[in-house]
């Protein structure tokens, strides 16, 4: 089932030929994905309703290798979250299809797990019980308990297992959310701006944590982000979603976003955050996002995140 294909990821290169059952990672195939919303999004909005549908995504074709970390970059509202939600079965494409590990996705798939931008923990459950929500259905009580304990250990929340989400910090809640997603033992981990709501330092720590997690259990990761540096730090490959300039011919209407750039990030992880090699890529990506880099020669990004103080 899990044929190990040579991943682009240098980090995931020493792929084990007989991967244990809890280290599965699956390929994801998007073929010609398109998604449009009706102008007034109503419940159960019929596709052929009178209001003209507003296209958000079109012609997204992409293959993600097993164990690969793919970052999806794009400006706000370009449909990157929609693409991720389609992969997670939380939304359905208007056109095209999606296959995971070669078989079509149908509804909410047990092979995928989603990490949201907000922690979305149940406030009446303890951190440990929230993580347990992600456990697969068939798992035994004792095994589930030990797995939750192991995951809490992994994300460094063992001493907060009995706390309520309200009693822990935003970064801890997001770590618990990550642990909940990992509890599902997903072949594909879908992360929708998972660190977007965190302060800059916590975000950097979370990025390192995610790399540790991926090194321990190399699953396929689709990471939606608007942070170029985060994408460069974490991903094997980055795709940039955006609207084609020459495609706006349909009576002035928008045509929806598609993949406008794709690049493979060189070098193994963890990467030097100050590397000059990545600076050039950062400049290209920022230009693709419509940001003037202000400093062609030096290759210094204009939007480098500076941590706010005090934290």
């Amino acid at each position, binding site marked *: 089932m899990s044929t190990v294909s040579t991943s682009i990821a240098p980090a995931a290169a020493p792929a084990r030929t007989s991967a244990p059952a809890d280290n599965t990672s699956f390929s994801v195939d998007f073929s010609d994905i398109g998604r449009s919303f009706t102008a007034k999004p109503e*419940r159960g909005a019929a596709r052929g309703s009178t209001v003209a549908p507003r296209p958000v995504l079109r012609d997204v074709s992409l293959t993600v290798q097993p164990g690969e970390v793919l970052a999806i970059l794009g400006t706000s509202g370009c449909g990157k979250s929609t693409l991720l939600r389609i992969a*997670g*079965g*939380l939304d359905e494409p208007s056109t095209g299809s999606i296959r995971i590990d070669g078989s079509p996705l149908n509804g*909410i798939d*047990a092979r995928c*797990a*989603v990490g*949201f931008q*907000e922690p*979305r923990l*149940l*406030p*009446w459950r303890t951190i440990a019980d929230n993580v347990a*929500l*992600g456990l697969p*259905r068939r798992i035994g009580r004792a095994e589930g308990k030990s797995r939750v304990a192991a995951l809490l250990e992994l994300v460094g929340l063992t001493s907060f297992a009995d706390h309520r989400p309200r009693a822990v910090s935003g970064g801890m809640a997001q770590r618990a959310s990550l642990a*909940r997603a990992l509890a*599902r033992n997903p072949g594909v981990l879908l992360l929708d701006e998972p660190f977007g709501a965190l302060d800059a330092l916590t975000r950097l720590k979370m990025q390192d944590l995610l790399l540790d997690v991926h090194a321990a259990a190399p699953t396929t990761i689709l990471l939606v982000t608007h942070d170029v540096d985060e994408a460069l730090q974490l991903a094997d490959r980055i795709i940039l979603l955006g609207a084609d300039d020459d495609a706006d011919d349909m009576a002035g209407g928008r045509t929806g976003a598609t993949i406008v750039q794709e690049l493979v990030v060189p070098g193994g992880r963890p990467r030097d955050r100050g590397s000059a090699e990545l600076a050039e890529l950062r400049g290209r990506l920022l230009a693709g996002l419509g940001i003037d880099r202000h400093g062609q020669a030096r290759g210094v990004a204009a939007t480098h995140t500076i941590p706010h103080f005090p934290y």
Partner: protein
Amino acid sequence: MTQTQIPKPGTAAAVRPARRPIRLTSRRGFVIFGGALLPLAILLVWQLSITLGVVSVSQLPSPAMVFLAAIDLYERGQLTLYVAISTQRVLIGFAIGASLGVAAGALVGLSRGANVLLSPTLGAIRAVPSLAWVPLLLLWLGFGEQSKITLVAIGAFFPVYTTVSLALRHVDQHLVEAGRAFGLGGIRLFTAVQLPAVIPSVISGLRLALAQAWLFLVAAELLGASMGLGFLLSESGGNGRIDRIILAIVLLAVIGKITDAVVGIFEKWANKKWA
């Protein structure tokens, strides 16, 4: 512990250094004492207005007369009987009405179809005043217990139904989606996410329903009963026993407050656990 208490001039904490920095108005003893102040003042004014001859005893009997009326009724065995029968009617009717209310509220709050189908009708029935039901229920169910319990159940049904259905519609969609994303659906999603999310509102609905149950009980007993506090009111109104009328009113107030306080304690506990 390491919190630095900032003394605000004029507050009790600044005047009187307390061992624990708890505000005066949240201390248990002060709360009980403060809550009892006004009833005691009313009692005092009541007694004074009679001793000073502001109102005549035939208009307003003295506190002592009301107390004696209570002793008198107690010795005849009626006081205990009336209180017991009224409380029983409220509790049974409340249990029936509240459980139906939770069920109907869950149905309407979770299912769009049920909402379209049921909520206009239920909204219209809710608009019917409690007294309007009494003649109909008396004719249909007679003077027995059923008619009173049914009316109390009607009264308890609507607060629960309304709060539950509204609360379920406003459950954080992010949490529901997270639950769905982890493979929960149907009854499992309801018990894992939606039900715990609405428990605080359900309990405040129950609290409202209990208050309403007492209101509907008196309506039922005023018009057709041979026992109970409502009957005591209508009977005493007929033969001019103002002391008994006041006694019945005081009893309704006290018992109603006690049942409400019990639910309030439960509510506090549940809010700590679920919210």
